[in-house]
């Protein structure tokens, strides 16, 4: 071990970059996969074609989470967030093209899209958080932030593939703000406020497995076909809405992106146009953790390196101490 270690270290100086690279290569090839979906996970299905842009979800979210209005216009009369922020956990954005005449049409059309936490199956924010402040509930799969330990390093803000966690920059005691699927309301028997208030069922709350099934059902319908769209909670008390099926883009965004998310989307306009870019199915968290663990698994590599380094330093010290104490005038040269 020591001799290979020694060679390894010397190589670091004289050409060992390739050796280290060789050490990393197999690690990248194997490693941990995406985390699996939690069977009991809860989430949202947002159907852009049902959304009428009424912003009821935004208003209800502010109320449920006790968030202040955000003023981005010259007149501070309305809550007008441009994006998610430290004051806004969900926002309805609008895609528009050309004359914006027809809803859910890519050319000369418009469409609404919701932004809020995707509650990834394999969340980057949980993986990167240095203090376990970001946590994914093992039962509901809801990703929450614990402000009691959060150090505000904003690694989650920077790393989130969907740019969801936001930070308060204008206060000395800032917090990370993100949608937590109204977890605090669930103890009282309520579910996500945005879904509860949605008049059209565009934002639907439920078990992710059921939501995925419902999304697939909608995709299987032919455009114009009349069907029933559940409102509020899938399988809940609210009555359905009867409406005509829109022309969907044949994709459920969030089914496999980043290893899957618990907030899934349907839309009539390509998702890339709605601010949801194509993403690989392998989660960034699994890529990063594979690399991290292949270097530090069981602390074997670091401990071995420490042993080797100690040996080298010790041997070096012995030579030096001799020189030092005998005050030998010769310079240090070739070592045996």
């Amino acid at each position, binding site marked *: 071990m020591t001799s290979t270690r020694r060679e390894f270290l010397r190589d670091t100086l004289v050409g060992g970059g390739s050796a280290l690279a060789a050490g990393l290569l197999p690690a990248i090839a194997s490693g941990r996969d995406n985390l699996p979906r939690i069977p009991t996970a809860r989430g949202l299905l947002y159907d852009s074609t049902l959304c009428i842009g009424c912003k009821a979800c935004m208003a209800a979210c502010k109320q449920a989470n006790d968030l202040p209005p955000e003023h981005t216009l010259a007149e501070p009369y309305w809550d007008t967030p441009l994006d998610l922020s430290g004051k806004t956990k969900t926002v309805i954005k609008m895609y528009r093209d050309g004359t914006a005449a027809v809803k859910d049409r890519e050319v000369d059309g418009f469409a609404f899209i919701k932004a809020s936490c995707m509650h990834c199956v394999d969340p980057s924010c949980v993986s990167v958080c240095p203090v376990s402040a970001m946590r994914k509930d093992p039962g509901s799969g809801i990703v929450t932030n614990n402000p009691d330990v959060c150090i505000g390093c904003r690694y989650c803000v920077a790393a989130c593939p969907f740019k969801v966690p936001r930070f308060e920059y204008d206060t000395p005691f800032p917090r990370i703000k993100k949608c937590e699927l109204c977890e605090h309301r669930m103890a009282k028997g309520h579910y996500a406020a945005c879904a509860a208030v949605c008049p059209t069922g565009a934002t639907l709350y439920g078990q992710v497995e059921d939501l995925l099934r419902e999304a697939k059902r909608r995709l299987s319908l032919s455009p114009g076909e009349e069907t029933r769209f559940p409102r509020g909670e899938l399988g809940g008390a609210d009555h359905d809405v009867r409406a005509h099926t829109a022309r969907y883009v044949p994709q459920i965004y969030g089914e496999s992106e980043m290893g899957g998310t618990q907030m899934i989307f349907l839309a009539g306009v390509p998702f890339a146009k709605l601010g949801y870019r194509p993403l690989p199915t392998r989660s960034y968290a699994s890529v990063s953790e594979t690399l991290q663990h292949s270097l530090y698994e069981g602390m074997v590599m670091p401990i071995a390196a420490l042993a080797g380094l100690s040996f080298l330093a010790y041997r070096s010290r012995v030579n030096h101490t001799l020189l030092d104490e005998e005050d030998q005038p010769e310079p*240090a040269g070739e070592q045996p």
Partner: protein
Amino acid sequence: MTPFSSPRVLRPSGEHSPVGGRLLTPVTAVLGLLGLVSLFILAVRLVYGLGAVTNINDGYTWGTWIVLDVMVGTAFACGGYAMTVLVYINNNWEYHPLVRPALLTSVFGYTLGGVAIFVDVGRYWNGWAVFHPAYAQPNSVMWEVALCITLYVGVMWLEFTPAILEKAGKIIWLRRTRKIMFILLAFAVLLPSMHQSGLGMVLVAFGDHIHPLWQTNYLPLLFLLTAIAMGFAVVVFESYLTSHGFRRPMETPLLANMSQVMVTLLVIFLCVRLGDVAARHQFHRALELNLQAFCFWCEVILFLAPLLMLMKPANRNRPRLLFYAALCLLQGGALYRLDAYLIGYEQVPGWHYFPSVPEILATLGLVSLEVLGFIVLSKVLPVLPAPHGVAHVNGR
């Protein structure tokens, strides 16, 4: 001991002495003033929040305080790391005189990097959580980096104690510390290896938020290589700067010999860097007309230039060329990290960031404090090599 021929060197012990002289000079006064300005700005940040003095936002949540002060700053502070590897691990004691000044720059670089982290982190009062086992998060590169940097700052101050003990004349303690120093030295190499590669690994989790010219699984290796190469370059840089500033003789022969390592590291770095971009079939991104591609080529040139300058062994003995090569390498390494963290952080459209005036001044002030600390300590403590081997350890 192949690449290092045995040069004519200073004696391996008793080779350091304080520079002496007045502490208050125009230079230290200006540095101190800039430092005070930065302390004022940091105080404003603590009272009114980060947004009051910085331009960081949710799009670019890590601004220059993190990228320049921590990511680039600690790379500049890798002199101690590089020299520890070279002298203590690789047993090239002829370079021992260069260790202490390198270590001193490292100690300040890292300490002020720590200060920068402290003020940039939003909820600093929860900092204990990083060290609390209940909240440990081994999946997080940030956790590993934070632990390593904190430990390393402690290790470096310990590694620096001989200078203080020499000054104080505590020979017994000096001998005692020397006996256990080897473990400290092992840590002084392991910890920066871990967190300097970790600083690269931090970006792996960013996925496509990082421009493909920079995003790769080789980021840890590339960051480690630049850290060591910049460590050597900063020793060269700092040596010439002190020669100039303190009107001391130049240490060219020693540096020239050492610069051979830089050449090797540059060759490896450029091979991995360019090979990686080519292997990922992303080279066409370097041919686009945009800021990222431009910066990529600037990087390549800044790494290639010192390599070409120092390739010919005769050139390494020319101080001006050596200094210039070191300068290029430092700029290249700094630009590489700036690119990877800020300029290449580009995938979310609509967001803009440029450091605000107070943000720049705070960074400038922290660097000033670092330089000021170096000047003051090298005047007071036996840090710099004694001129031409006539020195003795104080109190000996």
